[in-house]
């Protein structure tokens, strides 16, 4: 089976609102950049398959997959849409290439969240219609409930959660693709409005608009298209359970299972030693800590201390969310995982400019599909060919 490399990336955004571009133009602009970056490929003849990632309700369309080929240069081509995060799109593209039948596959995910006028209503529509939805209210209360139990069980503190926001928003200042960079203090986070006790307003990632397109290639084609391939060493994904009542409210089980799958695929036996940096879902500040533990990069309940010790800052031993994460780049719906992946690719190519991690060789990108899901995905990437 061929190894699989990311050979081109294109990003437009991320901004709190991009009213000048339609979602199709957003995709077009990101695609043009990605094709140029992949050695100037022509999507009309050089791409074997396209995978887009979108959810009908985010888009305001029924059967949205019919609306994606033209802006990617994929008309008359082989295309399908994954109703999930961009990292699931990556996993699909990776598998297509692994079959040996496809050499060049394009993955796309975007967010035009600013077009959604009733965001929380759509999230509420994802709750069980019989047991949970009739209770009403803003569905992000589920994050407040989970954070509360997680803190109670692990002893993680409110200050540690607030520190995640401070770190990631500061990291975002050095990322031109980030919408919400800021230099703030722990006290400012703790003094921000309580939304869902103990969850504060500033601990919730604000929405952003943008699009990311990536070009993946088999080893044979990768060598022709780029001199800086980033190898996809392993992918994993998992869903715990859709039932709020029976899921684990402390541990991110879906991430543990997804990580184990990706580590096995990548041949990683000691993630703490083998992974140089991490991009993960910090949709809510406490989720960064919970996910770091689930990725087995520290023990359960110890991520807060790791953060306090400076291990996860940009110049620490295990930098986490140097991009700014979702808190800094903005929550980009199904493009969230692609944000994490983009940063991993740029770091591994040595193109992360002012936020470059020196000597980075192995990076991890992780995503979570947000409230009310228990679904996550993981990709392990490297700039060294095994």
């Amino acid at each position: 089976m061929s190894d699989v490399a990311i050979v081109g990336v294109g990003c437009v955004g991320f901004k709190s609102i991009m009213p000048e571009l339609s979602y199709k133009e957003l995709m077009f602009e990101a695609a043009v950049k990605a094709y140029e970056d992949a050695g100037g490929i022509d999507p009309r003849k050089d791409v074997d398959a396209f995978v887009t990632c979108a959810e009908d309700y985010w888009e305001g369309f029924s059967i949205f997959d019919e609306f994606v080929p033209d802006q990617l240069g994929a008309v008359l081509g082989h295309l399908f849409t994954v109703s999930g995060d961009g990292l699931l799109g990556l996993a699909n593209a990776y598998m297509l290439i692994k079959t040996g039948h496809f050499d060049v596959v394009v993955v796309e995910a975007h967010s035009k969240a600013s077009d959604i006028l009733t965001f929380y209503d759509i999230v509420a529509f994802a709750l069980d219609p019989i047991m949970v939805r009739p209770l009403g209210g803003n569905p992000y209360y589920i994050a407040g409930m989970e954070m509360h139990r997680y803190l109670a069980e692990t002893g993680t503190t409110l200050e540690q959660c607030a520190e995640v926001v401070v770190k990631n928003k500061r990291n975002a200042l050095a990322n031109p693709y980030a919408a919400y960079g800021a230099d703030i203090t722990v006290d400012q986070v703790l003094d921000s409005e309580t939304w869902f006790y103990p969850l504060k307003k500033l601990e919730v990632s604000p929405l952003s608009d943008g699009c990311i397109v990536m070009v993946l290639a088999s080893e044979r084609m990768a060598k022709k298209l780029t001199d800086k391939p980033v190898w996809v060493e392993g992918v994993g994904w998992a869903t715990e359970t859709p039932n709020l009542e029976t899921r684990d409210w402390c541990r991110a089980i879906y991430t543990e299972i997804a990580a184990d799958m990706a580590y096995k695929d990548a041949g990683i036996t000691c993630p703490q030693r083998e992974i140089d940096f991490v991009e993960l879902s910090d949709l809510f500040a406490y989720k960064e800590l919970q996910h770091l533990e689930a990725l087995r990069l520290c023990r359960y309940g110890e991520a807060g201390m790791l953060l306090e010790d400076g291990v996860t800052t940009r110049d620490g031993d295990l930098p986490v969310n140097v991009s700014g994460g979702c808190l800094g780049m903005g929550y980009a719906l199904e493009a969230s995982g692609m944000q994490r992946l983009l940063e991993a690719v740029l770091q591994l190519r040595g193109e992360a400019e002012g936020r470059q991690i020196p000597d980075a060789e192995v990076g991890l990108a992780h995503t979570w599909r947000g409230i009310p899901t228990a679904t996550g995905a993981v990709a392990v990437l490297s700039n060294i060919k095994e």
Partner: protein
Amino acid sequence: MSLEKITDPRRMRHWLGHMETDYRYTLGIAGERFLNEIKENARIMGARCKRCGVIYVPPKMYCEECFEKLEEWIDLGTRGEVYTYTIAYVDMDGNRLAEPVIYALITFGDAYGGLIHKLGEVKPEEVWIGMPVEAVFKPPQERKGSITDIKYFKPAQ
């Protein structure tokens, strides 16, 4: 990209759309019996797996572990315990609620799962994880076979 500087996004051309979607969600055998017990008898029921012994609440038709059909129903009483809770201060649009709403996951003894519901007759600062609570039902004539036939859970005496 746009050729002119944009100073007011509301002046960008757009089209307002509205998706009206109405559904009739089927309760199913387990859901119907569960809600009917609440409506008729003010009882919270669980369903027990005869293979692994796990009691599901809310009850299901099948065990997610063994894939066994669940046919044994067990009365769990009306008392439970707060497993976790949150105090919601904002509404669907992110605006401040006039009165905060307390949401909790209530567990019932050894049963697997629980109920997501609201807490009432208690001040937010008086709630704690592990607090014993009991269901407050609407009067029989107002009950419709909905999870909201339970008005809320209140601190147990």
